[in-house]
């Protein structure tokens, strides 16, 4: 198992709602994060990006949802077989996560120092002084000025960008192998976003932490990631290295997405637009979820969900039409 990926998600399905009449919000989701790699997860709002990543942490809210199908492996270890009481050991130390909302993701009644210290304590650092030192070190690392002076501060005394950096410091404090970042910059301004993105890149470079970056912004992904997984309505529709995605996207949705973003050298009068509206994840029971908005849609798209065809290189996409055109290979496993 030497070259096993750090995280492998295969054929994952998550349901919400009553067991009798569940809503499958993601289905057949498969992707891998290699050791030290950097994977981007893009897609429209509600396409299942967060749910997929929460599933990897086994943090799907128990009351309303559950993992219905699929496997999640962390370094070859079957995460779904780990008893629930063992998960806390893995969370934070093996996989850490930062969330979209820097404003609400920190506990408002605990000091910054305590919150980072807690993570350290939970993963074995019992010595108070060393915890403090490490906390300061982490805050320095993420570029909080006057770190010593600010460990006693409360989250509300920090700006959004600083809070997001605190979140990152907390997530990194136990040297996780994998950092899941769920839209870490969406709530931030452009100039602050730039700071955070730079920080993430540095961390990956210096600490070798693998990153699973979730965003709806292809620009952000392009900046950070080696590889991109594109989701649409609860399914993975394309999975390829960043270069392929940007230069020759295989799925019509990915293509549309790229074209509808105004570019620097774009001189056309009108933007390219994908017609129609985004379906709610899980409501499309049959066929390709993108077909109603797809220029290329055919009869087959109505009937059958396309499998992930293997395209040139390491590129995979779920489209009958483009696969045929590119004479892409049939997938090894049919979904």
């Amino acid at each position, binding site marked *: 198992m030497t070259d096993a990926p750090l995280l492998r998600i295969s054929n994952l399905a998550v349901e919400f709602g009553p067991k009798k009449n569940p809503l499958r919000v993601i289905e057949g989701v498969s992707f891998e994060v290699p050791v030290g790699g950097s994977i981007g997860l893009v897609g429209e709002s509600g396409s299942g990006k967060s749910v997929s990543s929460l599933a990897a942490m086994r943090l799907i809210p128990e009351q309303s949802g559950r993992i219905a199908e699929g496997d999640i492996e962390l370094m070859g270890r079957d995460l779904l077989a780990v008893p629930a009481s063992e998960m806390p050991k*893995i969370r934070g130390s093996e996989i850490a996560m930062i969330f979209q909302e820097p404003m609400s993701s920190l506990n408002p009644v605990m*000091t910054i120092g305590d919150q980072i210290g807690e993570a350290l304590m939970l993963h074995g650092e019992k010595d108070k002084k060393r915890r403090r030192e490490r906390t300061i070190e982490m805050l320095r690392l993420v570029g909080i000025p006057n770190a010593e002076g600010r460990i006693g501060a409360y989250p509300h005394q920090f700006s959004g960008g600083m809070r997001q950096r605190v979140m990152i410091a907390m997530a990194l404090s136990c040297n996780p192998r994998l950092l899941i970042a769920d839209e870490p910059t969406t709530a931030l301004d452009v100039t602050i976003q730039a700071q955070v993105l730079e920080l993430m890149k540095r961390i990956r470079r210096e600490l070798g932490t693998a990153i699973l970056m979730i965003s709806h912004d292809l620009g952000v992904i392009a900046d950070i990631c080696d590889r991109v997984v594109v989701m649409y309505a609860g399914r993975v529709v394309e999975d390829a290295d960043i270069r392929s995605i940007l230069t020759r996207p295989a799925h019509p949705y990915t293509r549309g997405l790229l074209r509808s973003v105004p570019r620097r050298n774009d001189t056309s009068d009108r933007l390219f637009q994908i017609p129609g509206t985004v379906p709610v994840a899980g409501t499309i029971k049959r066929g390709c979820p993108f077909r109603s908005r797809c220029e290329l849609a055919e009869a087959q798209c109505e009937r059958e969900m396309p499998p992930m065809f293997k395209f040139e290189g390491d590129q995979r996409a779920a489209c009958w039409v483009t696969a045929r055109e590119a004479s892409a290979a049939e997938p090894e496993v049919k979904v």
Partner: protein
Amino acid sequence: MLRYILSRLIDTVPTVLMVLTMVFIAMRVLPGDPAIAALGDLATADQLAEFRERMGLNEPMLTQYLTFVWNMLTLDFGQSLMNGRDVSGLIAYNLPYTIELTLSSVFLGVIVGVPFGVWAATNPNKAPDSAMRGYSLIGYAVPDFYLGALLLITFSLNLGWFPINGGGDGFADRLYHLVLPAITLAFIKSAFLGRLTRTAVLEVMGRDYVRTARAKGAREKRVIYRHGLRNALLPLTTGLGLSTLSALSGSVAVELVFNRPGLGQLLISAIAERDYAVIQAGITVFALFVVAINLLMDLAYVLIDPRIRVK
């Protein structure tokens, strides 16, 4: 923070003044002549006049008002019109009974209600939650005086386990006399606090920072108590304040049912007898009590919520 506390303290000044003004107006509008109420229907006109003179009921309203406010603020409540006893003494005697009833019932309510609520919140839609729901629904529905009467009949009268009435003397005896009345109110308080805890904890448990705590690797117990309950404290403090206030007003009927001494008993008697001096003192003390509880709650927020503390 000091500034906040100070400004909150200053804030109570107009409130207290307004309360006193309301009490004063109410007292002067009260139908019935205090003099007759005090002296009985056999008093002569001269005696009545003499009485009014003595009580300052003949003074101009403004003078009466100023005297009133001053007296209330200096806790000089005058003499009972009924038996000439010092009202301050009456209050001083009765107040501890009401306080011990209120506080012990809130205390019982907290130690039963809060864990129950947490238990329900951490098992939503399961048996503990249903039990909480049933408990709180009944707790909300049973009138305190009715529950008190049932307990009294069952445990004091029929089983003879608890005293029938009075407030008791000495620590142990007072505690003994307190059991049933406190349980009566505590049942209702615990239902309220339990439900509130459940809602607050459930709400907090859905917050992003709780997810963060889990993502950090905190175990469920830690998540619930360190992150969940700690943040639910703010709504809980409000609830605690409300339930202290409602225990205070519930104490009126309960004091009556259990025939305990107390502010409620004193006030209701005074209202019935139109003992002006006692009514205005009783209401003022009740009102100050209410203002004080509200103030305490606000100050508690400061301790609990750093967002207020630092500002």
